[in-house]
Structures are given as structure tokens and as C-alpha cells.
């Protein structure tokens, strides 16, 4: 592998330039290579919460990355090849991870990795130029002041637009009550779509996304429970818009209503909670949303003694970017540093750095919460508009009712919670000593559980 090949493989000069920025040890973790030297892989921190998995076959330069880029190869692949070519980090020989083997099994032919140069003969690419650091442009203080003033004006405009949109939302909620919740439940999808579109215009994109998903959550409830579910959902919207009005500049409120901070902003925040611990990947949830985005949520359990018990890595990407590979394997454990988005109850986080995956044995899961009802309501005291509440449930078992619905029931029989889907196989044929689950809108989604048969996932 030499740098010439990296240069030839790149589709254009800008890819090469971006790759030069990624060819640094700090951007990568879990870098390794197969014993025979044919395959290399690594995880590269991108702009999202989850890192990208990057892999390449050095025999024919076939490659794959889990990022949504349409360029092929993307900058991450070029970066990985660059790391390898210049031996910037050691590629420790190790057993090929499953995700690399899976990719290898799906590859169709050897043509994939042919240099792109032949396709675009006109495009001149130059490694040296890509490496050159742009000279820092010294800005005129007047320009800086003007730009800051513009930013402040934009921020005020956004705030005003959001407040207007929230007025419209309040009006809309009142209308739903006046028109009757039975009609709302029947026509929820269309009605929610209309107000969501208004909220998007009013720059309240996060709130719009939430309202777009509301009918889905409502219709997942049994018909008899839907009026109650509608009151809970709409009530949370009232609480959220009132909370925003009280603190429109608060980062947490902005995140819930408008947009999230960028990765850079969270990383640069000196007050952000940073936890270095051993984490276990509980599950990954991938959901295509009504607004055309796919959300990828990775739930992590903190196996250490300090810091939040759960962390959630959340990314969005357009559905048009195609199916994306998983970033983690459920059950995988790793030592890593997470930075949490500022919040009264920190949950959403970004992965800053992780060491290579380690053996799943050893450390036990933390003990479940002493009182289940407290665990279910504690988060709501700080953020009453929250929808998903991660929980560790005490000893219990899956039971079925006469209608075929499934319930998680505690060993002592005192509590029973309805389970969202119908668990099958091992999950309902063994004791669950601890269960990690998400409680949302009166439905329990099981992520993973500890059992006499070891750790099992919800789809095992």
C-alpha cells in the first residue's frame, strides 16, 4: 500500500484534502488488520454520535464505510488507507471482526476498488497539495464584529419564529380538544402532519419531528387506551412549549424544540459532563421516520459506578442514503469516553474515544433501581415532556394474557408492564434476572436481559 494508490483512488482533490485531515491518530479507534495483512479496518469519528466503521481489502483496494456519503470511496476510507500507507498508527494484527467478514461475504466482485482515476482523467489530484495546511486568514476586526451581529440577529429571528410557531401549536392543541379527541385519534396522522409542516416553517424542526411520530405511538396502544394516550402526548406538548417560552436560549430547550447543537459545540462545551467508563451496547434501534429521516439510536449501559446509568447515541441520516450498517454489536463492551449533551438528566451523548472491544465477561450489570415506580417517574420530574425512559427492571418474567398480549411481570407479582411487541423463544422461557428496557407511552420495549442462559437481546 502506498500513497500513490490513495491518490489514484480518490474521486477528487477535495476528498483527498478531507482525507488528509482524517489521517491523524486522534480521529481513529479500534484500528486493526487481519493476520495475513489483507484486510484493514478502523472506526472514525464523524459528525454524528456514532463513529463510522471503515474497512478495506488491500489486495484489490475494495472498501466500505458506514457513513452516508455518496462519494466512493469516501474520505474515511481514504483516511484509513492513508493511515496504513504512512504507518501513522500501528495496525495490530487480530481476528477479523464480524462486521468486516459480513462485508466480505456481501462483496460481489473485485471491480469495486479500481482506481477512480480512469473514470475522471481530467481531474488533477495532488497529495502534496492536500497535505498543505491552509494559511490562516487574519480577519479584519470589523468583519468579525459584523458577522457576530448578523449571527445574533439571526438567532433572534429564529427565536421569534419559534415563538410564533408555538402560538400556532397552542391554538392547534386547543382545537383538538374542542373538536373532540375521538376525531383526533381517527385522523391523527393528517392533523399532525399539518401542524408539523407549520412548525418546520417556524424553525421548530425537532418538535415537528416529534409530532410527526405522535400518531405512530398513539396507534400502538390498544384502542381503549388511546384517549388517555392522546391526553398524555398533547399534555407533554403543552409542557414543552411552556418550558421553551420560559428559557428560549437554554440549550436543552433548543434541542427539544429546534435543533441539536453540533458535535463541535458539545465537544467544546467546558461544562459538558464527560464520563470515561466501561460501556455495554444494549441495543441499536433503527427507525425510518415520517419526515424522511432514519434515526439510529444506540443504547449504552454504564458498567462503572459513577455517571449516568444509560447513554443514548442518536444520529439522523436521510433515508435516501440507503441502508446503513450497524455501528455496534449488541452485547459488545468497550472502554470509552462519552460527552453528554447538557441536560438536567443527561442521557443523549457523543462518543469521544473508545478502545478496542473487549471480552463480554467480567463486570456485572449494575443493580436495578430500588423502586420501579420512582425510576419510571424520576426523569419526568426534571423533563416532563420526555417520551423514552430507560430502565433496569428487577427480577421478572414474560407472561401472556388471554388475548395474546405480552407483559413483563416482576418476580413478586406486584408489577406488570405491557410489552410493545410479542417476545418469542428464550425471552419468554426463562427468568429474567435484570432487564434493560425503554418505558415509553405505557409500552415497554425490552432491549436486553440477564438470564440463567447468559445475556440475551430482545431479538434472540
Amino acid at each position, binding site marked *: 500500500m502506498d500513497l500513490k494508490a490513495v491518490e489514484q483512488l480518490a474521486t477528487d482533490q477535495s476528498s483527498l484534502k478531507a482525507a488528509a485531515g482524517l489521517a491523524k491518530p486522534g480521529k481513529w479507534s479500534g484500528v486493526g488488520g*487481519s493476520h*495475513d495483512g*489483507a*484486510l484493514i479496518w478502523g472506526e472514525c469519528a464523524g459528525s454524528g454520535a456514532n463513529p463510522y466503521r471503515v474497512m478495506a*481489502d488491500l489486495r484489490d483496494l475494495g472498501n466500505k464505510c458506514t457513513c452516508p456519503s455518496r462519494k466512493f470511496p469516501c474520505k474515511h476510507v481514504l483516511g484509513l488507507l492513508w493511515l496504513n500507507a504512512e504507518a501513522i498508527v500501528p495496525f495490530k494484527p487480530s*481476528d*477479523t*471482526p464480524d462486521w*468486516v*467478514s*459480513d462485508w*466480505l*461475504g456481501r*462483496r*460481489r*466482485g*473485485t471491480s469495486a476498488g479500481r482506481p477512480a482515476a480512469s473514470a475522471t482523467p481530467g481531474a488533477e489530484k495532488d497529495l502534496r497539495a492536500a497535505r498543505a495546511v491552509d494559511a490562516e486568514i487574519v480577519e479584519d476586526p470589523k468583519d468579525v464584529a459584523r458577522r457576530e451581529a448578523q449571527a445574533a440577529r439571526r438567532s433572534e429571528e429564529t427565536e421569534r419564529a419559534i415563538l410564533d410557531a408555538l402560538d400556532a401549536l*397552542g391554538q392547534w*392543541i*386547543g382545537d383538538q*380538544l374542542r*373538536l*373532540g*379527541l*375521538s*376525531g383526533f385519534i381517527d385522523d391523527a396522522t393528517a392533523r399532525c402532519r399539518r401542524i408539523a409542516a407549520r412548525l418546520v416553517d417556524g424553525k421548530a424542526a425537532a418538535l415537528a419531528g416529534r409530532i410527526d411520530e405522535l400518531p405512530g405511538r398513539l396507534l400502538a396502544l*390498544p384502542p381503549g*387506551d388511546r*384517549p*388517555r394516550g392522546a*391526553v*398524555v402526548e*398533547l*399534555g*407533554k406538548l*403543552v*409542557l414543552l412549549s411552556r418550558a421553551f417560552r420560559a428559557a428560549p436560549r437554554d440549550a436543552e430547550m433548543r434541542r427539544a424544540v429546534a435543533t441539536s447543537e453540533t458535535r463541535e459545540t458539545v465537544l467544546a462545551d467546558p461544562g459538558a459532563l464527560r464520563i470515561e467508563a466501561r460501556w455495554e451496547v444494549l441495543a441499536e434501534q433503527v427507525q425510518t421516520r415520517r419526515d424522511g429521516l432514519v434515526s439510529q439510536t444506540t443504547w449504552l449501559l454504564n458498567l462503572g459506578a459513577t455517571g449516568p446509568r444509560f447513554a443514548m447515541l442518536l444520529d439522523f441520516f436521510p433515508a435516501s442514503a440507503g441502508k446503513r450498517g450497524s455501528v455496534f454489536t449488541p452485547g459488545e463492551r468497550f472502554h470509552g469516553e462519552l460527552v453528554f449533551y447538557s441536560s438536567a438528566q443527561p442521557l443523549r451523548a457523543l462518543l469521544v474515544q473508545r478502545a478496542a472491544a473487549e471480552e463480554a465477561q467480567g463486570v456485572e450489570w449494575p443493580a436495578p433501581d430500588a423502586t420501579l415506580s420512582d425510576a*419510571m*417517574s424520576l426523569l*419526568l420530574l426534571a423533563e*416532563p415532556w420526555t417520551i423514552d425512559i430507560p430502565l433496569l427492571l428487577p427480577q421478572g418474567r*414474560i*407472561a*401472556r*394474557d*388471554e388475548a395474546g398480549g405480552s*407483559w413483563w*411481570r416482576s418476580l413478586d407479582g406486584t408489577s*406488570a408492564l*405491557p410489552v410493545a411487541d410479542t417476545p*418469542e*423463544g*428464550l425471552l419468554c*422461557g*426463562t427468568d429474567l434476572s435484570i432487564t434493560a428496557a425503554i418505558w415509553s407511552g*405505557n409500552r415497554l420495549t425490552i432491549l436486553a436481559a440477564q438470564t440463567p*442462559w*447468559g445475556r440475551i*437481546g430482545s431479538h*434472540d
Partner: protein
Amino acid sequence: MTDAIRPEAIYDAMGAVLTRWTMGSAAAQAAPFWRAELGEDPAEAELRLLALSGQFLGIAVTAEPAMSLRVLPDIPRLALPTLPEALRPLARRILAPKKMAQAELVHFLAARGWTTHPADWMPSGGDDDVPEVYAPWCDWAEIAASGSAARQRPNEVLTADTWDDFWPTMRKAALASLRRRDPAAARAVLEAKLGNENAETRLRLLALLAERLSEDDIAFLEGIAANDRAPKVKTLASSLLARLGHGSAIDAEAAELAGFFPVKTKGIFRRTQMIEAERLKTPAQWQRRRALFARADLASFSGSLGMTPDALIGCWSWNADPEADTALVGLIVASGSDSEVAQVADLVDGPNATGLLMVLAPRLGPAARAKFAVTALNAQGIRFELAQAMAGPAARLDDPLSAPAGKTLLAALRRDDAKPADFGGELHALGLIASREGARRSLERLTAAGLVQGDPRLDMLRLNAALDDRGEKP
């Protein structure tokens, strides 16, 4: 303030609040205890009531299960240990693609003394092609699907009295094991209980008598052959009887079939008998011969020719008429004794030998199947996939890659235009028939030929090479 309000009062009011909102009327009146919080403006009061009620209903009111909840019994531990933890991801990858690969792998694992982890694979209730060791899980799956909460009694001895305490798969397994230990007791249980089962079950249970079949079974089998309600059960009983030399009497059809195969004598000094198929001239003749074979049994056919079954097999002119060869082997499989099956397996040779051995395979023991697979690999150059089908799950070949199929495979993998997904089936089959040592050596040679260690086509070989062989050697 709200502190003074009893939750019961709020709870009681929620019914009225929900009803009003569902119908589209204002609900603030229904929650007088929150009057101060709701304020004077009617529209604002409704929104505030919505926020408060939503919070209350979201936290304090959860769904209650109906009176009775059913818990399924524990998934039982099996007689063989589950696969070591480190090998489970590999097994999961092999199990993922299709049903065929699943059946092959679970049989392979059982032959090596292991079972799958129930989170990775479990049989479904009606699964028939599953190693006997999984019988408790088959029954568990049936219990789960049936809605019945009955408990299994795995330690119970199967008798006519305890018959109904067993779930079907465990019952079949218990009967098979009883037949191996005490053939007469197993037959006695069947005599008492077989009549109550449906035709499919009768067929499956009766087939268990093939193990340790003896003269003592004749009376019972004759009763079934004469009186059972289902033709296929009758046919099976007749075929078992024929294996004991109690085939149907020589009748006109057997004689007609014999007419297609004249017995000739050969040689001047040592006059030996030869059976050669008559050359057939019309499609009608072919069809008639096929039909007669389908209804005949070995004893009556050989009797019509005036000889014993083993003499018939010895005099048969193999490879002269391939269709007749196949029909005769089919006849032996259905109604020949074990010694006749062994006799013909040693005799078959020539270009059709592989096909004939495939027909014989279900009646051959694991050791014989593996032996013939090796012979066919080396002498006839068959592919690993075919060899695996012939050898069954218990083969342990030490050097399969040296067979012609191995050389062909290595050469193909080295070719420049080889695609990453080619020969997946061959490599998988190779992983199933190799011994642990054979798998290790094959991996070395394949990686030396340019395959990457992590190549998913090598999964089965990698699993085999890493798995301790705890199975009974055939």
C-alpha cells in the same frame, strides 16, 4: 396547592375529564380541585388542565393486565452442552442464511456432542428434521404455540399408562430410546397406543420399529398391514415385514415383473447365473415395469425368479440398465434386510454408483456412509456438496482437500477471475465433512491459496476447527 389534593380525587375526576375531551366539551369544570391552577381564561384553563392531566395519567395510571397471565415453562437444559460462548457468533452467522444450513449445522453439532444456545436457534414445534437431543425444545415450542400450560415430565418412563403425559416429540424420543433398550416393551406400548394417533404420527412412530427389527414384531406388523386405516401406514408395515423375509406372496404382478428379467447362465465350466434386463421397446413397457417395481417387494420379486434375495443381488448385471439398477436398489431400501443393504452397497460400482449410494444412504450406518463418501470423493471425483449429502452429519474426513474435488476447488479459487462469493456451498460442505484436524489443515491450505482468514465462506471450517469433538465416533 396541589399538595393537599388526594391522588384518589384526581384519579376519580380523570374519567369525566377524558369523556368530556373525547366528545369535544370543555373539561375544566370536572376538575374543581385545580381551579386555582387553571385560572380564569377558559381556553388557557383547558391547556393547563391538559398539561396536568397528561402528567398524572402518564405517571400514575398504567395499564393493568387481565386477571390471568400465563407463564411458559422454563426452556429445559438439553442432554448435550451448549456451544462454547466464543464460538456462538460464528454459529449465528452460519445459522442466519437459510433453513437448509440450519438443519445441517444442528445435525453436525449434535454429532460432535454439542447443541445450539436457545437464543441462537430453537426448533419450531412441528420441526421433524431435528436431532433427537432437541426433543424437549420441540415440545416447549409446541407448548408455547398451543396455549396450554401443561408441564412436561421428562423423567417419566414411557409406558402405555404414561403415554398421555408426554408431549409428542419427547414421546417419540422416549419411544426410540425404549426400542433401543427393550424392543419388546416398545412394541407393547405401540400396540396399546398407536391406534389413537393420526396417520402422520402413526407413520412416524411405526418407522421406529426399523431399529432392532426382529421376528417378534411380525404378528404386530401383520395386524397393521392388514387393518390400518391409512394406505401409507399399511405400506410401511408391509415393507418392514418384507425386511424380515415376510413379503407378500408371489403373485401375478411379481411374476410379471420377473418376466422383464430373464435368468441366463454364463460360462462353460463354472456355469453362473446372470440376470439381465430385457431390452424394452415401447414406452408402455417402461411404464409398466416402473409401476410393477413400485408395488413389488424384494422377497416376492426374488421368489418369482426362483432365488433368494442375496442370490438375486449377486446375479444382477449392474450398469447394463441404469433405471433397473435404481429400481432394484429402491426395492432393497424399502424391503431388504440390513445385510442385503450392506451387500448391495459393496457391490455397486461404475458411473451410477454415487446415485445408487445416495438412494441407499438412509439405510446405512454413519460409518458406512462416511466410508462410501470417501470412496466416491476419491474414485468418482464427486463434489464436496454431494459427498456431504452422502456422508451425513457424522463424517470426519482427515484430508478431504487431497481428493479431486479439493484440487479443483483450490485451482478455481486461485484463478484471477474468482469472485468473492464463489464456491460458498463447496467450502461450507467441506467444513461439514472434515474432522477437526482435517478442518485445520484445510484452512491452512485455503489461506495459503489466497483466501483471507476472515472470509465468511470459511465460517464452517473455522467452527469445525475450533470445536472440541465430543461426539461418538462411528
